[in-house]
């Protein structure tokens, strides 16, 4: 490889090394929700609309990060390996002919946190740096 080509890759690596994306992403639920922990698969099914209930049968309210948010991209990458493009295409199909509404999208970590705190059936994800004890972490997605 030519050194010129390496330059952008090196820059990306520098970003990662700076700790911007280093933080864990946590899946959070309301403290009143009896569910204590969830598997990545369960979370994935919920966030992709495959299941609409928590294990135990309670209904869910999916809270999404903004469409192009870095946290969202990282979340799905770590959760099930999907990238944003795949994700968007999936939701586009489901929304178009399946008449399914994608989950509600909130502005940022704080909005998600607030949403989970407020609603018992809610489930969302935030950077671990933003989480506090007002919510229950049911799944931690590490780098």
């Amino acid at each position, binding site marked *: 490889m030519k050194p010129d080509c390496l330059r952008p890759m090196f820059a990306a690596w520098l970003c990662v090394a700076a700790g911007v994306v280093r933080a864990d992403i946590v899946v959070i639920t309301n403290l009143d929700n009896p569910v204590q922990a969830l598997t990545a698969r369960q979370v994935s099914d919920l966030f992709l609309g495959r299941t609409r209930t928590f294990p135990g049968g309670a209904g869910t309210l999916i809270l999404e990060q903004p469409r192009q948010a870095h946290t969202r991209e990282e979340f799905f990458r770590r959760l099930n390996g999907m990238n944003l493009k795949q994700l968007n295409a999936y939701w586009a*199909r489901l929304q178009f002919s399946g008449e399914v509404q994608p989950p509600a999208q909130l502005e940022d970590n704080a909005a998600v946190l607030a949403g989970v705190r407020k609603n018992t059936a809610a489930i969302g994800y935030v950077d671990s740096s933003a989480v506090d004890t007002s919510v229950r972490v049911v799944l931690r997605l590490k780098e």
Partner: protein
Amino acid sequence: MKGKRISLERRLVSYVGVGWLLFSVIAGAVSYRLAYQNQFAAEQAFQQQLLRTVQAQAEVAVFARNTKIAEDLFEGLLTNPTVLGARIASNEGYVEEQGKRPQLDFSKAASYPLYSPVDGKQKIGAIFLLQDDAQIASLAARTAFSLTAWLLLQIVIGTVLLFAVSRAVMGRPIAALAAAVSAIRPGSGQRVPVKEMHSDDEIGLLSHQTNALIEAAEAAMAESERAKQVAEGSNQAKGDFLALMSHEIRTPLSAVIGILDLALRDETLLARTREQIEHGTINARSLLKIINDLLDFSKIEGGKLSLEAIDFALVQCIEEAADVFQHGAARKTLRLQVDIAAEVPAFAHGDPTRLRQVLINLIGNALKFTEEGEVVVTASMRELGRGRREMEVAIRDTGVGIAAEALPRLFNKFEQSDTSMARRFGGTGLGLAICRQLVELMGGRIWVASTLGEGTTFRFTMPVLEGSRPTPPVLEERLQHSHCLHILVAEDFVTNQIIIRSLLEDMGHVVQVVDNGFQAIEAVAENDYDLVLMDGRMPEMDGITATRIIRAGGPSEYAAREPGLPIVALTANVGEADHRRYMAAGMNEVMTKPVDELALHRLLERIITARLTLGVQLIPQAVYSERELDLQFDVQASPASGLPPTLTELARQAFVGEIPARQAELLAAMGEQDADRAGRLLHSLRGGAAQLGMDALRDTCAELEAYADAKRWERLEAALPRLDALLKMTREPIRTDS
């Protein structure tokens, strides 16, 4: 050819039609099959593509268990006419299906795996697509059919176009060429027209070549016509040449014979001279015989010889034929014996001349090839049944004989038993061929048996019709002509002029001789003649032309005094065609050369009578004594030729004549010390001497022969003067005789 002729055009149509049909069937089948397969494959490829496009949607539907998506998807798929039904099923038991008909069996449906939208490698279910094969097939068939139909249409259009073009470009010109060629008649000079537009193409080439061929054919026809004419001409020329040669040779020869005969009339001749002249006559006659043989042969070959059918003395004829050779036989000290059976009729009906010719030929041959012994001629009769009889004549000799291998060729023309024979004995080789031809012409056969060294026997048969005694030739008293004729002889050959002039003058007539036809015309214009004897062939103007001119009254400056005067051809041309030509030219008669005195005498007799009847004044002749008449008309009987020599005398003369040659040969043999040859010579001398009764000579020869056999050359030489003396003596008495 005519009724069944099929034009190129029709053939083209039928060939093209059949070919088109075959090709169409094959091409149609192939094209149909290919189109069908293509269509089928395309349909399947389309399904694949269809599936690929719906795969992602189906995956989402299965993954999210979304019936709405599934229905949407099915709706899309089923709009495709070849899709009968579709179904999606997840591994977790989620199933959605839809079809155009109820109760579809998806077990035979094509299935394609569905993967998780999350993890592309994880299989989450499958989509089944049930195709309507009949629908696909009918679709493919429709497509294939329309394609094939289009192809066939193209072929039809192409064929028709090609046909029309080829007809215009080739068929019509070829048909036109064919019509032109068939209209041409060879030799008419017609040619195939070549159109401008075809001047450089194959049609033009064909036309030109056809014209060249016609020209070549016409040239060949003309050439063969010319060759035919040349061949006919050459045949004519051959015949003419033969006639000319016979004339050219026989004219001088008959002149020689005539002159010699005239010379023999001279009573004052020395015996030796007479002998020499007689030898000359014999040789000239034998030459004449050879020429006659050649002529005879060519006549037989040309089928121009015809046989006479007259009564004649058969036995006498045979005897006379043999008699001709008695002299010769005696000379060779051979015995010539004739033995005629009693049954052989004295008189027969047939051709004596030809019988004599055969006999003379065979006897002459026998004598020629026989040195010692005898020649025996026998004649006997055989019954053939039904009243027919044939005579068998045998000529047996004790001569050299003929080799067995030469026998079959013997009767072929120009063949002798071998070429050395020809050197030794001479001859044309035609004699036996003529004999065979003549014998066969007379209805008989001829064959030969021979043993080399012992002798040969020729036999021939001929059917014999018994005849009556021929009316004996009236021994006309050749009276002296009563009147003197004024005769013009047109004859270019001086010797013949002399002969004819002396014959005519001897008969007491006035003769004028001219050299050619032209002079004859002049002469008849200037003088009165009672007769013109006209030779056929003459320089400047021949006899026929001259006769025609005279008969027509002559040319204006040489008007004939008497255009109708008797003109008689005097010619060596004896052919029937010649005879007709002479008569056609206006001649009164034809006389052949050598001139027969008796015939000439009779002719003049007739002319005298005719002239007197016409009232022409003729001068009467003085009357001669009977002896003088004899002198004039009968050479043989005239005393001038002396008494007929006896056989012995003839033999003696021959013997004496041979002596100088024998002596020379003896000396030569002695010089070469050839005992055998010397012995043979002395032996034959002794034989001759014994025959002639010259005993002293005979004994001396015997003595010398013994010396020769013993090769005692010195004794032989010593005795030679004695022999010479004796030989000289044999010559003496003959000289004193004369």
